[in-house]
């Protein structure tokens, strides 16, 4: 009873603060010359795209935190790996069949092993069918033609998901039960390791990600005399984000494994006593989080056109901020935080052009304000769905 009173009061306060902001923004837009409706629309589209990307990355942070209370600082690097996997899949194909076979066996084998351990594939028939699909599919994709962005995205998501599971198995699993600080430091170490590993293996140079896809085609439209500059990626990013969110939500709320995840998030020990395989749930969480990060990485690369081994640093920190703003541990919170951050970054530059270099400052000031007034984040109070 008391809790709900506090909730309603804080809701009213946030609504009031929100209303004040909207009025201030309206006044500001009015006072800016040249800030036409077409430019408002343009900014909105850009912000939605950027915010969706942050949201996808933020989900990985929030899910892992929800399950094992770990801030996985290496998540930004998982995002980087995702874009590199897609880059290689899209530029090196078609591979000669011998190399393709080798890659298929290594990659397919790892993927299959990980998938088997994640989804309880005991039944031999199903396992056989799955391995046929994975080995055959990978070999087919790599050998016969140059891959487009959809195949690149799919392959990269699978491979990155597996990389996330391996990261968990190698770096975090041995520390289960150790003090939380140890895990945190390990996460930072893993982040540095992956950055330097990337520089060594992929090269330190910036690479162009110039996939000439349908996504880069201009689809400009007019509002009055002015043009809104529009490319396919501006629709595809929010759409793919929404699709992945919908699937994730179904998975968490409707499946047995999703239920196990929610149980583990509430209380890992009790869940284990009830027969939930906690190790499997944790691995699965890393798998899903990494898949989402890979999707973000590939779309980020298509949108901004370049990749490099340190590219995960800033988006990683921003997405972490987004997760905390939304309420770390909460899925809708991560999405809300990501979108909010994207909108702030774009609109601060538009509405206060002289402050354009300080757009990150605004994001972090917002973080401080929210932590002051709502320490558990925008929607972090509700602890029921904390995966």
């Amino acid at each position, binding site marked *: 009873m008391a809790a709900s009173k506090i909730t309603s009061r804080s809701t009213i306060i946030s609504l009031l603060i929100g209303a004040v902001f909207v009025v201030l923004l309206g006044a500001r837009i009015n006072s800016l*010359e040249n800030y036409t409706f077409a430019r408002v629309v343009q900014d909105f589209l850009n912000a939605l795209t950027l915010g969706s990307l942050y949201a996808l990355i933020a989900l990985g942070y929030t899910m892992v935190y929800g399950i094992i209370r770990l801030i996985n600082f290496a998540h930004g690097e998982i995002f980087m790996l995702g874009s590199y996997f897609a880059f290689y899949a899209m530029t090196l194909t078609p591979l000669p069949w011998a190399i393709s076979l080798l890659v298929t066996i290594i990659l397919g084998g790892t993927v299959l092993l990980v998938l088997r351990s994640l989804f309880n594939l005991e039944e031999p028939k199903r396992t056989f069918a799955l391995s046929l699909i994975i080995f055959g599919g990978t070999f087919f994709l790599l050998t016969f033609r140059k891959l487009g962005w959809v195949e690149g995205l799919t392959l990269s998501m699978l491979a990155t998901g597996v990389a996330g599971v391996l990261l968990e198995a190698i770096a975090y699993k041995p520390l289960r039960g150790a003090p939380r600080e140890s895990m945190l430091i390990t996460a930072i170490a893993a982040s540095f390791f992956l950055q330097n590993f990337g520089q060594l293996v992929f090269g330190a140079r*910036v690479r162009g990600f110039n996939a000439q896809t349908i996504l880069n085609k201009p689809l400009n439209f007019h509002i009055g005399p002015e043009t809104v500059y529009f*490319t396919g990626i501006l629709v595809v990013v929010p759409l793919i984000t929404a699709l992945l969110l919908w699937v994730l939500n179904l998975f968490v709320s409707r499946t047995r494994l999703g239920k196990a995840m929610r149980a583990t998030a509430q209380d890992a020990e009790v869940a284990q006593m009830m027969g939930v395989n906690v190790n499997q749930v944790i691995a699965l969480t890393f798998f899903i989080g990494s898949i989402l990060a890979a999707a973000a990485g590939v779309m980020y690369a298509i949108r901004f056109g370049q990749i490099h081994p340190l590219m995960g640093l800033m988006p990683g920190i921003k997405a972490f901020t987004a997760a905390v703003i939304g309420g770390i541990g909460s899925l809708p919170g991560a999405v809300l935080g990501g979108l909010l951050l994207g909108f702030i970054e774009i609109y601060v530059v538009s509405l206060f052009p002289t402050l354009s*270099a300080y757009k990150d400052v605004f994001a972090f000031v917002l973080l401080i304000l929210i932590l002051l007034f709502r320490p558990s984040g925008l929607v972090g109070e509700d602890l029921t769905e904390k995966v």
Partner: protein
Amino acid sequence: MRKSLLLAVLVILGSFAFAQVKIGVNLELSGRFAAIGNQTLNGIKVAHMQMPKVLGQEVQLVICDDETTREGSIACAQRFVNEGVVGVLGAISSSMSIPAAEVLQDAGIIMISTSSTNPQTTQIGDYIFRMAYTDDFQGKLAAAYVVKDLGAKRVAIFRQIDDDYSYGLAGFFDATAKKLGAKTLVQDYVANTVDFTAQLNNIRGFKPDAIYYSGFCAEGAPFMKQLREQGFTQQVVGADASDDPQCPEGAGAAFDGWIFTGFATPNLIPDPEAKKRAEAFKAKYFATIKNAKPGDFNGFVLAGADSYNVLVAAIKKAGTTDVKAVRDALANMEHYPGVSGDITYKGTDGTPKDRTIGFYQYKVKSANDWKKIELFGKSTAEVQ
């Protein structure tokens, strides 16, 4: 600990066995400016191969990678102080050169920045030299070109606010452009910015005739991609930081047409004697560096080579490896025949008197198919 002890013993034994002159090399070999850093290193290496000895002693290059961070650059400088080098070559960028220069000036070690152009760098002290022109010159030339030759009345300027070079250069450009009667609008961004859409939306209302970009390629590539996507067709002019293969390779066809000022390549050096030397060095470079691509040879290579050449020449002239004597020889150097042109430090703050800036344009078909076209060269002497 034991390993470093062993190393120390080896170094001491080694120095007894063959007397060596040590020269430190502090460059951005990884990180954001890795491409330019490695080009400069190749220039230094080829120059070293041509002149491996001075005063009858072997010259040993001690190479240190500052990873394109200020902390890394300071760490490299401190390492050179401990190792007792005569002088340090590098770093390439102003942001890494200035912190290293402060350490080396305090320790009394010569530093020759290969391509730092911020005026502040050599004003840190009397031990600090450079191989480049300064940004007031570069900014002035670029502004005159944009306003007079391109006829731009309104210029949008993009500067990286957290970089000494980019910020300073944009300021010089802005001042000259205004003096010549153009209107300007400055937009700021920070390192690692990839989303320029809001800044681009801002300059839309300003309706610029040309755009000046004083930053680096890591941000320049996504900048150009978005600029063209958002329907801007104006001429973009950049500076020597865009003389980096990461620009056309990062942005692909969007980078086509980009004009920039940079260190002069052999063809653009006006002095015929200097041009001959540069051509000879270029031939030597391609004979020595295995699988060097044509696009890899640029003014940074020449600047790297000359930083080594002048230091060795100063040691020769001083007749000793005593740092103070070598510094005096360097500060009084007149008309050294360098591969990047004539080098005179006498009467300057450590910036060579006569330098040439080249104007170039990128022709980019795709990330793997691009070339630089040499437009024309202007020397410092000609302008002042």
